[in-house]
């Protein structure tokens, strides 16, 4: 009897592995408009190319390598590799492992992705710039996790730098 239960359990696990449900994929969640607003800033300009030029300059200021650009769609994407984690996290992981056993796990590196998109505003005379950041964070035991960067201060700082870049680029700096 126990073997039958075990068999049914294992069969169910394998069947689940074969037929994962994707019914909830690609549904908009309740916060998407809020995020869209956080990630978007309006710029008063008639020149989309100049706006994209200033955007590329600011991405270069921030150390991104441009991996894709398409002016027809107003898209720029970029990536950069950087260190991850900090001394506190590392020390904590080592102490934790010493106390409770196991291997200390801490972050060692990250790849940061950016997508920037411009679009003509339908209500005002100018362009909206929307930017989003995401990271893949690798740890010392060879695994990784992905994270969307949703911190409002990141977006606020980026748009401050972009505004500055629009001014600098317009003045050929």
């Amino acid at each position: 009897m126990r073997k039958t239960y075990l068999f049914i359990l294992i069969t169910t696990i394998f069947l689940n592995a074969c037929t994962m449900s994707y019914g909830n994929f690609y549904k908009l969640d309740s916060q998407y408009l809020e995020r869209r607003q956080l990630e978007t800033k309006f710029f008063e300009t008639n020149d989309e190319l100049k706006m994209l030029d200033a955007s590329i300059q600011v991405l270069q200021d921030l150390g991104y390598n441009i991996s894709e650009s398409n002016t027809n769609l107003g898209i720029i994407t970029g990536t950069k590799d950087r260190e991850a984690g900090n001394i506190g996290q590392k020390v904590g992981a080592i102490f934790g492992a010493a106390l409770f056993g196991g291997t200390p796990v801490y972050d060692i590196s990250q790849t940061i992705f950016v997508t920037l998109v411009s679009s003509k505003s339908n209500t005002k005379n100018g362009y909206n710039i929307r930017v989003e950041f995401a990271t893949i964070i690798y740890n010392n035991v060879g695994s990784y996790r992905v994270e969307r960067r949703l911190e409002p201060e990141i977006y606020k700082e980026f748009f401050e730098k972009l505004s500055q870049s629009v001014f600098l680029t317009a003045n050929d700096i």
Partner: protein
Amino acid sequence: MNKTIIFMISTIIFLTGCFASNSAHVIGSNQSQVEMRNYQSRKFDTNDKKLVMRAVVSTMQDLGFIINQADYNIGTVSGSSFTNMSTLTITVRDINSKQLIVRAIAQHNRNLIQDPKAYSNFFESLSKSLFLEAHEIE
């Protein structure tokens, strides 16, 4: 003893059912082309390719995608999701002077997503975004 052997054989059958041979994946599809195109595609009553492609990009951003590649002339956008680790490639092509076809192909964990619901969710989200493009919320 007999039960143990039956159990092992059943497990092996399920395992081989899950994992096809390497070369089988090169073409590998267990659905007909017509069936797949049917649930992966939607017609839109507009000839404005740029508007639709920009709405595709915007929808992908709303869904937490980072755009990997975009080509207006050939009508493709692809990206990686940072919410569910899937990848999505969208193609937009005009079929006559009044309509466009948008097609989505999604992969997750090295598998093609064959659940029509995932695709209908995407097109529903895209329709919302197209509405937003026309009636922008700021």
